[in-house]
């Protein structure tokens, strides 16, 4: 067996082993995306590698299996027990095919029959017959829209010693998409006297178009990756990053070696029509988020520098200078807002994807559900949204599966036939709150407690408060469903959900009422979130409170005074409310500039209090920055924000402040 075949064999067997483990785990523990991904990748990888060796039997079979897994992955086909069994058989069959292929032995009839049978079964699953896999088939134009790639490869000196055939690799690349051109780089070719026939000297520049990822292209070259220098660029990217272009072979005059060209033409019919239909430039660009952090810090510095410039403008009173300075300030403001917005994404788009899942699950369980999304415009850091998606999905499945009753039962209980599941998001005092509420059967506290006792999570005698009892469902190994279904409820979920949320420095809580429904509340901090704040001054210090907590703002005139000595109250049109003198409370020095005092009426939950403050500045786009560990015990302060002048404003944490002031 040649060395490459050996690699192929080992790789294929390894992939198959992973596929088998995933299948068995899926049977034991329930299907999840990870398992599906593993199974899909196994088939995909084997197909890819087999393609390099032209093992057609393996290619055609794995292609169909891959289609099947793709359909599973996209949720078109459900991975049930039967399908898992079928896939196990497929795995065994591929293993057999690999054995025969490695031995270069022809397939005996019984294997061929099995092959046909399995393919037919898979096709049944796929319902509509799958596209036939033809090696020379090109992908339809629509799917390759803007996926132009430039592949540059240089053969290393010892390439010929590896015995690898580059033509077959390029031929395989052809199956992933379209080769627009392959040009040979000969600038390293020495003169005839000096040439060493054992060395390649050549490089190739390939223009390739295909609906693939960069990794897919690199994977094609996997077998020779150590023997060549490979660079894969997305052409879109090159166009955007003009300055880098000099690295690309403008100056190297591509000369086409006729032999190679002939070979390529063998495998590639002319594709002139394609060239015209390439739609240019994709709209998004992946950027490391730390780069944006640096950008934001730099802009903050610029804002401060700009404030200094403005001071000089005032000092010198030069009209032209002033004009430029105003323009600069405006641009800077715009730049700042735009950069801040890069990281922030509305949650709506991500939430919309859940609609499908909820519907599918409901349909499967014969439940009728109205799924509503509220607060989709709430903005959250993109990475946080990505990381919160899985836990949310799990909780939604839970709500549908365990929460909502069957329609008949609902009607019997005097509830509407359609259950309601609501997913909502809203910012609350420096946090983003995401809630999942259903009007299902709710969780009985005593059921939770007795279950926890039975599972040994708590001792028989341990007494718990309601809140503590609800927390039990987030314990590892806790599942309240009496019948385990394949949608949720193997007790592997809620503890993972909790862990994921805590990893984001958030918290999750549950409130439930038997017969009425349950509500999960996830509270996520937003270190880099922008809130609409209300800026004001007390003494020497600027403060901000979230704008949506401001109920109204009034000037503290005599009509609001309460004549009870040493009282801290004020009279808001006949309602007596507590008044917090912030200057006194925070021991601020008096504000010299300020002439009158104002009251900000703050509401939180069902409570209202007044804050007695000095100067009001109004609405302010606030970037929340952490105060740091040093100030972890600072009372009622959540964070700070840097103002345009470079000054710092402290952000009130209203819920904590209410807590401290014991307004309950």
């Amino acid at each position, binding site marked *: 067996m040649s060395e490459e075949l050996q690699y192929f064999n080992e790789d294929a067997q390894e992939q198959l082993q992973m596929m088998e483990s995933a299948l068995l785990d899926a049977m034991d523990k329930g299907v999840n995306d990870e398992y599906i991904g593993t199974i899909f990748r196994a088939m995909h990888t084997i197909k890819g590698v087999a393609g390099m060796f032209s093992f057609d039997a393996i290619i055609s079979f794995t292609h169909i299996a891959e289609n099947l897994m793709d359909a599973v992955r996209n949720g078109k086909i459900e991975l049930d027990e039967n399908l898992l069994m079928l896939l196990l058989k497929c795995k065994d069959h591929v293993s057999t095919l690999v054995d025969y292929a490695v031995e270069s032995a022809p397939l005996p009839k019984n294997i061929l029959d099995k092959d046909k049978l399995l393919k037919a079964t898979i096709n049944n699953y796929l319902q509509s017959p799958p596209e036939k896999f033809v090696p020379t088939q090109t992908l339809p134009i629509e799917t390759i829209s803007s996926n132009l790639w430039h592949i540059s490869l240089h053969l290393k000196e010892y390439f010929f010693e590896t015995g690898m055939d580059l033509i077959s690799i390029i031929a395989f690349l052809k199956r992933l998409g379209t080769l627009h051109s392959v040009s040979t780089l000969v600038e390293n070719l020495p003169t005839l006297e000096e040439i060493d026939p054992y060395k390649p000297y050549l490089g190739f520049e390939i223009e390739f178009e295909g609906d693939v990822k960069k990794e897919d292209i690199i994977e094609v070259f996997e077998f020779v990756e150590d023997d060549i220098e490979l660079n894969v660029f997305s052409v879109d990217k090159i166009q955007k990053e003009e300055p880098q272009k000099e690295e690309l072979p403008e100056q190297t005059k591509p000369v086409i070696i006729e032999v190679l060209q002939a070979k390529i033409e063998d495998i590639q019919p002319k594709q002139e029509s394609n060239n015209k239909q390439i739609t240019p430039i994709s709209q998004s660009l992946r950027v490391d988020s730390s780069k944006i952090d640096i950008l*934001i*810090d*730099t*802009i*903050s*510095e610029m804002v*401060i520098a700009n404030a200094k410039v403005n001071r000089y403008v005032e000092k010198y009173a030069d009209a032209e200078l002033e004009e430029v300075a105003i323009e600069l300030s405006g641009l800077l403001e715009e730049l700042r807002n735009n950069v801040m917005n890069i990281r922030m994404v509305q949650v709506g788009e991500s939430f919309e994807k859940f609609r499908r899942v909820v519907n599918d699950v409901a349909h499967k369980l014969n439940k009728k559900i109205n799924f509503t999304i509220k607060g989709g415009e709430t903005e959250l850091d993109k990475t946080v949204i990505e990381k919160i998606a899985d836990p949310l999905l799990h909780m939604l499945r839970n709500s549908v599966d365990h929460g909502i009753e069957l329609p008949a039962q609902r009607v019997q209980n005097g509830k509407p036939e359609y259950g309601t599941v609501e997913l909502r998001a809203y910012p609350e005092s420096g946090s983003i709150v995401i809630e999942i509420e259903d009007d299902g059967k709710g969780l009985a506290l005593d059921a939770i407690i007795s279950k926890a006792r039975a599972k040994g999570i708590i001792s028989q005698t341990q007494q718990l408060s309601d809140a503590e009892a609800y927390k039990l469902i987030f314990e590892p190994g806790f599942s309240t469903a009496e019948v385990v279904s394949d949608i949720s409820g193997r007790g592997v979920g809620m503890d993972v959900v909790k862990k994921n949320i805590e990893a984001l420095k958030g918290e999750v809580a549950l409130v439930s009422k038997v017969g009425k429904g349950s509500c999960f509340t996830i509270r996520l901090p937003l270190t880099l979130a922008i809130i609409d704040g209300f800026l004001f001054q007390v003494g*020497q*210090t*600027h403060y901000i409170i979230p704008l949506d907590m401001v109920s109204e703002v009034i000037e503290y005139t005599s009509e609001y005074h309460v004549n009870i000595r040493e009282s801290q109250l004020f009279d808001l049109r006949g309602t007596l409310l507590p008044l917090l003198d912030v200057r006194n*409370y*925070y*021991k*601020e020095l008096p504000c010299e500039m300020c002439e009158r005092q104002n009251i900000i009426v703050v509401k939180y939950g069902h409570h209202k209090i007044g804050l007695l403050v000095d100067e009001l500045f109004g609405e302010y786009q606030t970037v929340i*920055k*952490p*105060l*740091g*560990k*040093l*100030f*972890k*015990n*600072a*009372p009622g*302060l959540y*964070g*700070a924000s*840097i103002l345009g002048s*470079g*000054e*710092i*404003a*402290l952000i009130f944490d209203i819920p904590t402040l209410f807590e401290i002031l014991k307004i309950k």
Partner: protein
Amino acid sequence: MYSQILIDDDDEMAIKEGPQYLLFYLQSNLFALRGECITEIVELPEITKVPWMQPCVKGVCNIRGTIVGVLDISERLMQNDFTNTNRTSLVIVKVAEEEVSHKIGLLIDEVYEVEVFEANELQSVPSFGLPIDSKYVEAMIPYKGDFIPLLSLKSVADIEFLSQRENPHAT
């Protein structure tokens, strides 16, 4: 990182190799800090007071868009409030706590010098007799016929202690 604290004595640096130390004045006494924990030294920025903190925690300031807590080490070590002169500087140091490092700014009266000392030059701290509590001193450094206390950042900038609230009823 060190380049920010190299001042103007490249020649001397070249002769002596070893860890760098920042020497600075505090209430007209010289003190030293390990260079490796210093990220930068800046002019005294505007400080925003944070209410209800220990008297030595002066507030927060804006260092390149990061909010950094300001610690008055004169107050912390000698219970003497700092005096703002045009030489007053803020030394930004990294303090590790629970594997996360935090930046804290230390107020000093004046930067004196950056020097290199080898580990064997450091001497142990006398158990009493220093004008400041010896728990804040890590070692004594002999320098030009005198001794400079090397401050222990860990105990000077003890976040657990510093983050405690001032007793609101005390004053």
